[in-house]
């Protein structure tokens, strides 16, 4: 998808790339200067403008031949810095421009300027900063600019995690900051090596110059690993559950839905553009294997959580793993990396997850606000008290399972097709299992929510309807994503796609739900309303075995989330990737 | 000339290393602060010499900044930085 000719010129519409970064950042500056009273107003002034810019960018891209380029200061690379958007950037920018305003609408009542001024003022500035940082990552054409954008993202998210000032959120924020810094230093080391080797940091120039020599591969291993730490791919996830579960719901929605995709996007840029295919098939399998483990671990531990927000956080862990399956699947039979269906499927899954997971966190936040707690076993009857929130959660979950016409379903089809084409049948199992495991925890939560309440539910506070609607819109977005015209932005292979509204849609809903129900019964240690007594007695031995397995997984997870284990795994992953890249070169 | 100055830099650095060994061991905090002071002064001397050797006049500016800020480590030590902790008022150290 890289432009064929050397990019020495700004394309028409390239200024949109500048605006997509500058507008939210200007919002931050303006909000900071104007003071607490106007912060939310500034944010809501920026939102529609940002949405308009994203829309203009999405429309301008096909007209520009699939590429928009802007040379900052009119200085051509390698001396200058270029901004560069392709189809991937456009869809990520669009997804961001949908999720952030939706979250803003959801957060508007909670973070109103009249309340205690601290949290609202910080929240709106940080939200705008995250938007600017993400856009900078999506259109950055220079590895060092991407580093600055990544740091911007980290600095905007860390205070969000600790916004309520409790000790465990402060601890979570500190762990996140330290681990993210470790990741970005490794990334920076790789950047330095690449500059020393090729005298350029521009992505397009590097993609032309990079060759499979040892220094390049070491840089690739370091950069990839550093970014994995920021993406929280298993086993580098020590910071994710406490950070995503401890932040305010609106912040969690952004953190889980969007922020982890920023570093993932740079991994994609590295592997598919900067050093296209150089890391090699074996190293891609490491990413795939880690992703597969993440799916199992994240889902099993999610099923064992007591609190809804932690369950969703662990589900994010599993979904991040799912995203990394695209890397091995992008290598075809002869070992060449293709920008094809696997890449499209991965990016599509990232967008589906962004919308669905944000909606689920927002729903969980509403439920928490209503009940005053979010213990899963205490959710009985909440479907009657807060039907909209539960509906949103259910729709988000269904979208994530891969039920047509959701984006996740299309993504799954694309990845399955890639697996068939590249004759890597073993990933097929995981792709299917991912949907079933997702179904398991969604079913578990819904079973509680739909069960009759033990005692009448007294809602603590009423959640404004607008909040629920914002979340619902996002969930519906995710559910209908499969119907969008993706082909002009993502490398989707022609033909072979199933009809999203066909009869097999039903089986795609029923099979995961049935499988998920079984898994939920087997793996969740808490009393739940799913199982009948008779059945329970019949499967008791099996359930004991499964619970034992779950305990084991949870114990391993506890060890891996300790700092020494996590940081040593980080180095181990770097060395493993480096060795395999070198062996494969 | 330049060899002599380079050798002087090396010598001063070696002295710094020796002095540091004794001071970093402590035992008291005051000794540690002295080590910071020592390395500041030695660093300034080394920078001045180095700037002359390498023909980089701007090295003097680096020394100027170091000399200007030479007191800061000790002040931080005495003032315990700028942000206060509530527990401070209760402990007596």
């Amino acid at each position, binding site marked *: 998808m890289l432009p064929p000719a050397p990019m020495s010129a700004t394309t028409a519409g390239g200024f949109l790339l500048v605006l997509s970064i500058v507008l939210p950042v200007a919002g*931050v*500056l303006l909000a*900071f*200067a104007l*003071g*607490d009273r106007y912060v939310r107003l500034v944010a809501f002034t920026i939102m529609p403008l940002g949405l308009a810019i994203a829309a203009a960018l999405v429309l301008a891209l096909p007209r520009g031949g699939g590429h928009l380029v*802007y040379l900052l*200061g*009119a200085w051509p690379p390698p001396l*200058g*810095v270029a901004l560069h958007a392709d189809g991937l950037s456009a869809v990520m920018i669009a997804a961001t421009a949908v999720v952030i305003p939706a979250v803003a609408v959801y957060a508007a009542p909670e973070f109103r300027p009249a309340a205690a001024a*601290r949290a609202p003022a*910080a929240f709106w*500035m940080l939200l705008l900063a995250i938007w600017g940082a993400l856009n*900078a990552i999506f259109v950055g054409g220079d590895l060092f*600019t991407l580093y*600055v954008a990544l740091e*911007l993202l980290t600095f*905007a998210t860390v*205070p969000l995690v*600790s916004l309520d000032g409790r000790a465990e959120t402060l601890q979570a924020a500190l762990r996140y900051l330290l681990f993210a810094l470790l990741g970005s230093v490794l990334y920076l*080391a790789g950047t330095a090596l690449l500059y020393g*080797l090729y*005298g*350029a940091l521009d992505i397009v120039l590097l993609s032309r110059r990079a060759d499979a020599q*040892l*220094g390049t591969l070491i840089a690739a291993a370091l950069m990839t690993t550093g970014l994995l730490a920021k993406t929280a791919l298993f086993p580098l996830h020590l910071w994710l559950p406490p950070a995503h579960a401890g932040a305010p719901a609106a912040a969690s929605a952004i953190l889980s839905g969007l922020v982890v995709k920023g570093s993932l996007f740079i991994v994609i840029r590295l592997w598919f553009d900067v050093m296209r295919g150089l890391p090699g098939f074996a190293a891609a399998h490491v990413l795939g294997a880690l992703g597969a483990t993440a799916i199992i671990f994240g889902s099993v531990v999610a099923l064992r959580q007591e609190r809804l927000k932690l369950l969703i956080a662990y589900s994010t862990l599993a979904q991040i793993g799912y995203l990394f399956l695209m890397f091995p699947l992008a290598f075809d039979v002869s070992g060449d990396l293709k920008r094809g269906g696997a890449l499209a499927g991965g990016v599509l899954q990232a967008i589906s997850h962004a919308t669905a997971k944000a909606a689920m966190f927002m729903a969980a936040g509403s439920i928490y606000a209503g009940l005053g707690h979010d213990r899963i076993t205490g959710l009985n009857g909440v479907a009657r008290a807060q039907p909209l929130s539960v509906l949103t959660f259910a729709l988000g979950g269904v979208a994530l399972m891969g039920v047509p016409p959701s984006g996740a379903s299309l993504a799954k089809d694309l990845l399955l097709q890639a697996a068939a084409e590249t004759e890597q049948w073993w990933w097929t199992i995981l792709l299917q299992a991912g949907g079933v495991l997702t179904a398991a925890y969604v079913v578990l939560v819904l079973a509680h929510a739909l069960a009759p309440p033990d005692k009448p539910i007294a809602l603590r506070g009423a959640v404004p309807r607008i909040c629920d609607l914002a979340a619902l819109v996002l969930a519906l977005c995710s559910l209908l994503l499969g119907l969008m015209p993706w082909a002009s932005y993502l490398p989707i292979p022609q033909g072979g796609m199933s009809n999203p509204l066909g009869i097999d849609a039903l089986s795609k809903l029923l099979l995961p739900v049935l499988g998920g129900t079984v898994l939920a019964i087997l793996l969740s240690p808490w009393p739940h309303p799913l199982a009948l007594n008779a059945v329970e007695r019949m499967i008791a031995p099996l359930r004991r075995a499964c619970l034992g397995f779950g305990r084991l997984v949870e114990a391993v997870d506890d060890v891996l989330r300790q700092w020494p284990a996590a940081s*040593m795994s980080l*180095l181990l992953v770097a*060395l493993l990737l480096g060795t395999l890249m070198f062996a494969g070169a | 000339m330049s060899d002599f100055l380079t050798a002087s830099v*090396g010598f001063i*650095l*070696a002295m710094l*290393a020796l002095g*540091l060994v004794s001071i970093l061991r402590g035992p008291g905090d005051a000794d*540690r602060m002295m*080590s*910071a002071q020592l*390395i*500041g002064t030695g660093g300034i001397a080394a*920078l001045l010499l*180095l700037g002359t050797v*390498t023909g*980089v006049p*701007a090295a003097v500016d*680096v020394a100027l*900044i170091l000399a200007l*800020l030479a007191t*800061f*480590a000790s*002040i*931080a*030590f*005495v003032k*315990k930085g*700028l*942000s*206060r*902790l509530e527990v*401070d008022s209760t402990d007596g150290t």
Partner: protein
Amino acid sequence: MSITTVFESVLAALVLGLALWTIAVRETYSATVGFVAYGLMVALIWVGLDAIDVALTEAAIGGGLGGIVLLGAAARLRDTESTAAETPNRMVRLGAAALSAAIAAALAIAILLLPDAAPTLAPAAVANAAATGLANPVTNVLMAFRGMDTALEKVVLLLAIVGVWSLASDQAWGGRPGPHHEADPNGVLAFLARLLPPVGIVIGVYILWTGADHPGGAFQGGAVLASMWLLVIMAGLADTPPASSRRLRLVLVAGPGLFFLVGLGGLCFGAAFLAYPIAHAKPLILGIETAMLLTIAATLALLLAGAPERSVPR
């Protein structure tokens, strides 16, 4: 082996010795002192590498502000050492050592394998210097060729301020950061705080001014000014301004704000975003740098002053 190599080896050994000390020593406070010393020695390495701009930055950060923030924290947290003694066991330490050594070795190999014909952008930077009218190529890279990085980095600094301030309690939000320092009019500190700042301000402005053509620049100068302001605050001669002060907030956004405004001017009327019209490039860049000097000085000082603690009546 030439005398220069001997000198470089002594310097490297000293730096590595201090690094080892920082990592290995048991007591946190000693480790911190070791790290501050390490920073000063690294400034020497930068001079040895003929990167004076970086050496100035390292000296201003490592010698002044970094020392204040790290030593201050170490002095405060020293009582926690006993409670936080969760030292990993020998196996973990051995494993960590092996892994770290492997990464370091890989990096060393990569360094040694760098191509003999080293790629460089120095000629390109020199060839394009005429467009800005500034002779210091590092300033040109920071302010013109890679201006976007610099502008975004200033936003990072602003976000750090937001982050630090967000740690305040709800009541203290908008108040004055840090504790009130009692002034001892006859003390050493007050004496120093009256004597040093005028000198420091001259030096800070000089570093900014000379940065146009020689090593120096806004960040280094700003760091010096920040140190001076902190000295006055620590001596109790002045108080930190309230975080809600409009004037303070304008100063804090002035640098990146002006940078983006000039950039947008270029987008609307000139060649491109962040492109300077050749006739006015030098005054524009110096203007942005002056605004940045103030912003950086205020930002760095307030970063160290911490979260607002004392609310002011509004």
